[in-house]
């Protein structure tokens, strides 16, 4: 069981990091010297960048014409508490929050299912390789894994795109759902969503799986040198029990931490994959925000993604606590 004190400590930790991200988000545009965008926006003038109406509203709501940085920080926090991240230049009159709320589920869907599928496939593969350490299949698959985990995510996506979507047209090349179609039922809609998600998710899985597999393999090989593995062999237990209940069960602990640490990279990968497949999540939105110099939206996306990853890390922490009996008591 998770003790209350432990839970409280992790929650505080998460809050501190979240607060850090929020503060960083405030200072980012303000600390970069000689930035014309910021000079324009924070100088209070309705200038060349962005919709003048929006700039005026932002200036007013966030106290941008007040030169006191502390006051601006205060306004920023107050607006944040009220769920206001400003207004998008590009999607005006939509607010940044409403744009993000529409797009976020797609990103969570891609990154979440990519991580889970990659872990579900990669970890058993790692166990398989560790048990056969030094054999031909192990060396071949491990080397291939090392190669793949060094290749950028989006490149894997491009190759899949050429292969499956252009050369042999099996899967759609873009979007999350078919355009201009009315669905007969919820299931038809879900089916279409999954059909469109095959290539983006496969890209993430192919990119992530080798990392999890190698991590599991290497950890388990270290675990296999532990005394309790020798005990397990001495007890005359069948191999599958030693492999799963002793070696893999212990090796999964550090790998879980690794999954947590890698979340940030996974999200980064998901953003690029969305751009590649014109998938309507935050990554694609971030890309179009850059193209249209929509700074409020960029900032908002950064903040929301950071908060999501911080929260996901907390969840991974909790899972770790549940599977490692040594943590909960301390």
């Amino acid at each position: 069981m998770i003790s209350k004190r432990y839970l409280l400590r992790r929650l505080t930790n998460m809050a501190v990091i979240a607060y850090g991200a929020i503060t960083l988000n405030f200072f980012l545009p303000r600390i970069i010297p000689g930035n014309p965008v910021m000079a324009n926006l924070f100088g209070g003038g309705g200038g060349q960048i962005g919709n003048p109406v929006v700039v005026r509203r932002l200036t007013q709501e966030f106290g941008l014409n007040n030169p006191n940085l502390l006051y601006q920080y205060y306004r920023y926090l107050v607006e944040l508490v009220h769920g206001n991240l400003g207004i998008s230049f590009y999607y005006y009159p939509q607010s940044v929050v409403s744009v993000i709320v529409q797009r976020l589920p797609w990103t969570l869907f891609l990154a979440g299912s990519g991580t889970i599928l990659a872990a579900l496939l990669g970890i058993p593969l790692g166990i398989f390789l560790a048990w056969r350490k030094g054999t031909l299949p192990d060396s071949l698959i491990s080397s291939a894994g090392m190669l793949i985990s060094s290749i950028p995510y989006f490149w894997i996506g491009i190759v899949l795109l050429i292969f499956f979507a252009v050369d042999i047209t099996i899967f759609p090349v873009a979007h999350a759902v078919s355009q201009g179609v009315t669905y007969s039922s919820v299931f038809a809609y879900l089916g279409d969503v999954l059909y469109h998600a095959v290539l983006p998710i496969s890209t993430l899985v192919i990119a992530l799986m080798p990392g999890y597999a190698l991590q599991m393999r290497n950890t388990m090989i270290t675990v296999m040198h532990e005394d309790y593995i020798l005990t397990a062999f001495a007890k005359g237990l069948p191999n599958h029990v030693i492999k799963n209940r002793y070696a893999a069960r212990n090796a999964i602990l550090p790998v879980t931490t690794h999954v947590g640490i890698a979340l940030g990279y996974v999200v980064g990968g998901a953003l690029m994959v969305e751009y590649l497949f014109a998938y309507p999540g935050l990554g694609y939105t971030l890309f179009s925000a850059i193209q249209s110099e929509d700074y409020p939206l960029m900032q908002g996306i950064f903040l929301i993604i950071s908060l999501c990853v911080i929260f996901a890390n907390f969840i991974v922490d909790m899972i770790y606590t549940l599977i490692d009996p040594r943590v909960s008591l301390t």
Partner: protein
Amino acid sequence: MDLLEVSKLNIRYRTKDRTIHAVRDLSISIKRGEVVGLVGESGCGKSTFGMSLLRLLPVSTDISAKKMMFNAGDGMQAGGIDILELSEKELRRLRWKHISVIFQGSMNSLNPVARIGSQFADAMFWHGFDDETIKNSISSHLELVHLDDSIRKSYPHELSGGMKQRVAIAMALVCSPELVIADEPTTALDVVVQRRILKLLMDTKEKLNLSIIFITHDISLLASIADRVAVMYAGSIVEIGDVRTLFRSPLHPYTKGLMSTIPRVDERQSELVEIHGSPPDLSGSIRGCPFAPRCGIATELCAVEMPQLRVVEGRHMVSCHNVEVQDGKND
């Protein structure tokens, strides 16, 4: 017929660039209910020998022996079983059910993520015990080592070093093996706990009529617990005999050296035999007596000819050119 008969056992570890001949022509027999102490410096091959009885050595290890028989008696084939001839499946049946190991409990020998109870249960389950027997056995064995039954719900990290060591003992006995290999079971414990554990081990041994091979680097421990003591040096037994004989009149210069490290109350000890230098490199072949370079009484013969283990008197045997033995009784 002895419980265990080993004759001319040789074990070689193959590594990338060399082969280490860890156990050299080792012969020993162990009777039912007998406690044999195996003593020597680290790296002398004593643990390797212990693990070889369960064939728990790395895959790249060569084991050969003239004879390596385990005679369990009931339930096993008449005439005993040849440990070296067993298949994977037969080995699994031998392990823990007939020969088990007490590891150093203070080490990481218990699975850190499984409850104590389940670590007892899995061994029994896979050796075909039914649930009722498993439950009762765990209770009775925890009681045997004076641990509360509630321990079964604990994880290893919640126990003290002494408790873990008692768990390791109880666990080794839970399938009622005939032979137990105790591999430095008290090494990392403080003296008081160490004493208690040894007493416990001896009491249990009396109750269950166990045979024990007690592996240690501390010869003084053996005085109170062993029936016989075998001194190992560079992969071979250099002296073996009843505990009294060996402690009263050690013959091999190496044994004398080990003995002299024990503080004694009586003033009978006249000379302090110090052992200089370090054991030989086991990766090469050794010419002559392996102890000769460190020996105070080595002669020219010692440098060229390997001494054989010869009977001194009764069960007392020694391998040294400079020890007078009864003639005509060469082994």
